[in-house]
């Protein structure tokens, strides 16, 4: 993954990052090689490092739980985790002490209630303090689009009049939401800074033996997350000889993906359309586990640390 291809080295365009420094797309991203098909443990080992900004996406559907558990198992620390809906997967990473900062737009257990590990971190700094960068769904989606497009920001009609508009402008954190005036009409709109994660992690239904990835059903913001990120890990239900067309499918060509790992059931208790259904019992049961620090610690030992990568 160190070789920079002709195409990539020809890309002289530089993008102004949210932080202010310039970074060329060619330097930032290896769009050069085919995906490597490896084990889940190896993919996480090689792609995700302490201190990285990691986006594990999947909008209710195709949430990469097995990969998240492997990050906990490998005891990564000081991660900035990015996700529109933190869901149980980030509740678990936060409770396990892997996370320093959360960039998100809705942190609940859908249809059930609170994410108690997330709340414990925000309300009581347990197990470690949690820094927040908070947006709306529309804002987060557009930040990924900007990242995938190689632009420093995206424009939307949003946030006006809300408390979120000024929230991230406080001392100590760089603003990620700012007003912008349309150069054509003069309309006041909102700019949100691009997301450029170090690593995107997603789960998909299938990949072929060359590492081309195919996902369908609710496809969320996964394509944008992968294209916005410097590296990516994709777990799949199965690796097949060839990808037959599916209605509404997103295909990520092999050269846009870093690592593919075959992990059947890797999105449980979320689901993979055509392979599994959402385990709503598990989502309901999480409320009692997540609510209690001791119950959570026991869950972590039994269901993550004592289990080999990719199994449950």
């Amino acid at each position, binding site marked *: 993954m160190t070789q920079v291809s002709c195409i990539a080295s020809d890309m002289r365009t530089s993008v102004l990052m949210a932080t202010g420094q310039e970074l060329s797309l060619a330097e930032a991203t290896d769009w050069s090689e085919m995906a490597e098909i490896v084990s889940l443990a190896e993919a996480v080992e090689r792609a995700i490092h302490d201190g990285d900004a990691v986006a594990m996406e999947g909008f209710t559907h195709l949430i990469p739980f097995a990969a998240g558990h492997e990050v906990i198992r490998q005891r990564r620390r000081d991660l900035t985790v990015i996700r529109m809906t933190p869901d149980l997967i980030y509740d678990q990473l936060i409770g396990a002490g892997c996370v320093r900062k959360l960039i998100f737009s809705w942190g609940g257990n859908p249809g059930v209630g609170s994410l108690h590990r997330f709340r414990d971190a925000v*309300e009581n700094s347990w197990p470690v303090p949690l820094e927040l960068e908070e947006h*709306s*769904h529309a804002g987060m*989606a557009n930040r990924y689009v900007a990242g995938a497009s190689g632009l420093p920001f995206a424009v*939307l009609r*949003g946030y006006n009049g*809300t408390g979120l508009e000024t929230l991230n402008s406080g001392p100590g954190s760089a603003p990620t939401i700012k007003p912008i005036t349309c150069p054509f009409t003069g309309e006041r709109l909102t700019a949100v800074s691009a997301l450029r994660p170090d690593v995107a992690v997603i789960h998909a239904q299938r990949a072929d033996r060359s590492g081309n990835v195919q996902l369908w059903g*609710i*496809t969320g913001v996964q394509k944008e997350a992968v294209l916005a990120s410097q590296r990516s890990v994709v777990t799949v239900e199965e690796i097949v000889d060839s990808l037959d067309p599916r209605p509404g499918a997103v295909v990520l060509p092999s050269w846009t993906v870093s690592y593919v790992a075959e992990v059947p059931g890797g999105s449980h208790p979320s689901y993979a359309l055509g392979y599994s259904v959402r385990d709503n019992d598990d989502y309901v049961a999480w409320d009692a586990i997540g609510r209690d620090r001791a119950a959570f610690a026991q869950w972590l030992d039994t269901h993550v640390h004592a289990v080999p990568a990719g199994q449950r």
Partner: protein
Amino acid sequence: MSSRTCQESAQEVSDVSYSSDEMMTVSAARSLRDGMTCFVGIGLPSAAANLARATHAPGLVLIYESGTIGAKPAQLPLSIGDSMLAETADAVVSVPEIFNYWLQPGRIDVGFLGAAQIDKFGNINTTAIGGDYLNPKVRLPGAGGAPEIAASCREVIVVVRQSTRSFVDRVDFVTSVGYGSGPGDRERHGLTGAGPRKIITDLGVLEADPRTLEFTLTGLYPGISASAAKERTGWDLAIATEPEIIAAPTPAELSALRSFQRPRARSNP
């Protein structure tokens, strides 16, 4: 919690008795007209929107933020992304697309939202309660799709249980804008939709006063008094001269609602 218990016991006792949550859901469902396009929040709004589609509004177009347009679930989904939404939808689009192409331009008639806190101008808080933002007493889930739903749908209906904790003079945090601080605020903020038309609660219905934009009690359920509604409101609630008495749920409405209610701890079929 008590209302859930009440609902369960009501189901066991008789078909004609109903819980306050069922009355609220039926009332919210009636506010949707056939053929409307409706951006649906999860929980109470989703139950009401699905009830409307199962009864008087079979042509109601349900849109969930997961990108499912025209979903027709046979059972209530637990999340906004359950598989039955994708499997029954007219179209499934990406999350950037649902917000940018469908919600933002004002294509959607009504946004159907819940709230943890709501104030007299219909501003919604789903972010944090008590303390300050960095050290809140209770951290709530946050914004999700609500700020832009509240801004860009042609109109908004809020479904929320009424109590002095949830109905406050000013919300602790403005997650989604209703009428801001009063007349002229939506225009000042450039919000394209008309704003919240109704707040539907477990006691009755509130509508914005056309002059002050302050929410006023205009409807009550059978057996609920205006003073009871006033007691469960954290501001000095104005009452319409003659609040409408809203009809109790019909047997058809109740049976439709109960037929697709998910037992709390059972998975999708």
